[in-house]
């Protein structure tokens, strides 16, 4: 459905007052995403996961330097097409709960999302209600303001806003952050259902363990580079099916497995990771 072909992204920064330098955030990233699949993109903070999402949606700041190509349904996905497809074919479930407008009632915001997807306003009201019902948000929650909802409910509202647009490609950016196990499973199950309906779901997360049960494919990212793409079933046992040492180490570092940080430590830390740590 979506193919990324040697995508590189550079962002400017000022090394001093007048000298502008470029930092490479994503480097030669190539990946196909297919319909009906949940594709997890896993990496540490600063690996460029969210920027990848913004690059696909075309929401990068104007100063960003983007090379490589995107193809959506076999046609190049350029600026103009991104603008046209945003909210209709491409949907983003943002990472931050601040993405909900604190001054507007939930139902209204979802109706706006439906309108932006091209529904006429009367139908938008109706489909917003339906989408919210679908994610078990009752009438009270629909009439509430964002600050009156729990984290899990707000997450489901954001999912409902992506769902109401009928988009075919859904990018979920860290949808499980700060949720308790019950709420987390609810959100993940909702994403799985979207994929089962034939949509393509890109699940961006740093939480490999919880992504695996619903993911079909897993891509490990590190420092803007693609380390390895494997099917979710490769993450098993000692991780011998994985080809890259970093992804193996990541897998083994999980509490359920070896819980051995040594393997990751044996891996050289990149300067950027050291910075973040």
């Amino acid at each position, binding site marked *: 459905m979506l193919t990324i072909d040697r995508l590189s992204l550079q962002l400017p920064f000022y090394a001093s007052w007048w000298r502008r330098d470029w930092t490479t955030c994503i480097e030669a990233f190539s990946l196909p995403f297919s319909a009906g699949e949940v594709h997890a993109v896993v990496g540490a903070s600063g690996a460029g996961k969210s920027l990848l999402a913004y690059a696909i949606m075309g929401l990068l700041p104007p100063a960003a330097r983007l090379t490589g190509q995107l193809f959506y349904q076999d046609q190049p996905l350029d600026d103009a097409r991104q603008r046209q497809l945003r909210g209709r074919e491409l949907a983003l479930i943002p990472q*931050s709960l601040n993405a909900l407008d604190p*001054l507007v009632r939930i139902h209204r915001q979802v109706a706006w999302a439906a309108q932006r*997807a091209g529904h006429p306003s009367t139908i938008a009201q109706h489909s917003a209600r339906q989408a919210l019902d679908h994610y078990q948000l009752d009438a009270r929650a629909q009439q509430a303001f964002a600050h009156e909802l729990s984290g899990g409910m707000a997450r489901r509202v954001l999912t409902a806003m992506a769902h109401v647009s009928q988009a075919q490609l859904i990018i979920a950016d860290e949808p499980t952050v700060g949720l308790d196990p019950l709420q987390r499973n609810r959100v993940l199950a909702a994403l799985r259902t979207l994929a089962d309906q034939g949509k393509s779901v890109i699940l961006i997360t740093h939480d490999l363990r919880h992504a695996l049960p619903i993911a079909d494919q897993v891509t490990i990212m590190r420092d803007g580079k693609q380390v390895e793409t494997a099917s979710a079933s490769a993450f098993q046992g000692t991780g011998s099916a994985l080809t890259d040492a970093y992804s193996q180490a990541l897998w083994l570092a999980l509490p359920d497995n070896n819980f051995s940080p040594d393997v990751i430590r044996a891996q050289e830390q990149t300067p950027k990771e050291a910075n973040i740590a």
Partner: protein
Amino acid sequence: MDVRLITLLIAKRLLRLTLVLLCVALVSFGLMMASPIDPIDAYLGPQMAQVSPEQRTLIAQRWGFDEPPAVQFGHWLRQLVSGDLGWSHVYNQPVSEVIGQRFQRSIALLGGAWLLSALLGFGLGLVAGAKEGSALDRVISTYAYITASTPAFWLAILAVLLFSVTLGWTPTCCAGPTGTLSQEVTLATRLHHLILPVTTLALLGVANITLHTRTRMLELMRSDVATHAFAQGASRMEVAWRHGLRHASLPAITLAFASLGELFGGSILIEQVFAYPGLGQATVAAGLRSDIPLLLGIALFTALFVSVGNTIADTLYGIIDPRIKAGEP
């Protein structure tokens, strides 16, 4: 919200308002006591020389000036509560009448300028913020920065020079033609006399609201809310209309109502320049000619006016932003 809660809320607001007024009364009374104005001299005016010291003490006794300040304040406060603000010797009328008449004229000037500056400022700020970096934004920002740093009376003098003296489009002074009774002045003439002062005052008020609204809009356009809306395919104008309008109205409302006091101060200068017989001009006259009752009355009235404005802003805040619940301490 049930009726009891609303009653409680109103009672609390009224209590707070009373306390504010009491403080203002206390401070302004203290200032008058400390000022070098002798109320008897001020009352007598040029006849001062014809009055003997014995007569002066008699007046002082009659008016209670020989009593300690606290007792005098008590007298004044008691009269105030019964609705008697005193007698203005400058206008030879009860103070409440002077304030009432003057305020009617000032409210046309103040209210017109206030409404115009709030609406225009908010609109310009929204447009400038939504179209950040465009030519329109640059024109609006430049205009706002220039007017923000322009003194009111100077602009007023320039306006009179250009529009009244050189071009002759507007009258140079007053609320109506000279030599005409105020009852005979038609509405059109009144408005004609109001145009220049209102415009001058509004032009200056616009800058502040425009700049604050614009800043809030820029902040919003970079926020997660806007990014999410863009991800749904919204255009900048749509985000400005649906999200920006609500978010930017909060600082605009605060400013608009907080600037009531400022506007009042500005109107004193403007009314002086345009010789407009409003409350501002009465304040100047009362100050220059030591009309203490009138000055105190105006101080109290202004405090009431500004407090009510702030209370309205407070209430509106709770309506627009659900995170701020009115009535909760």
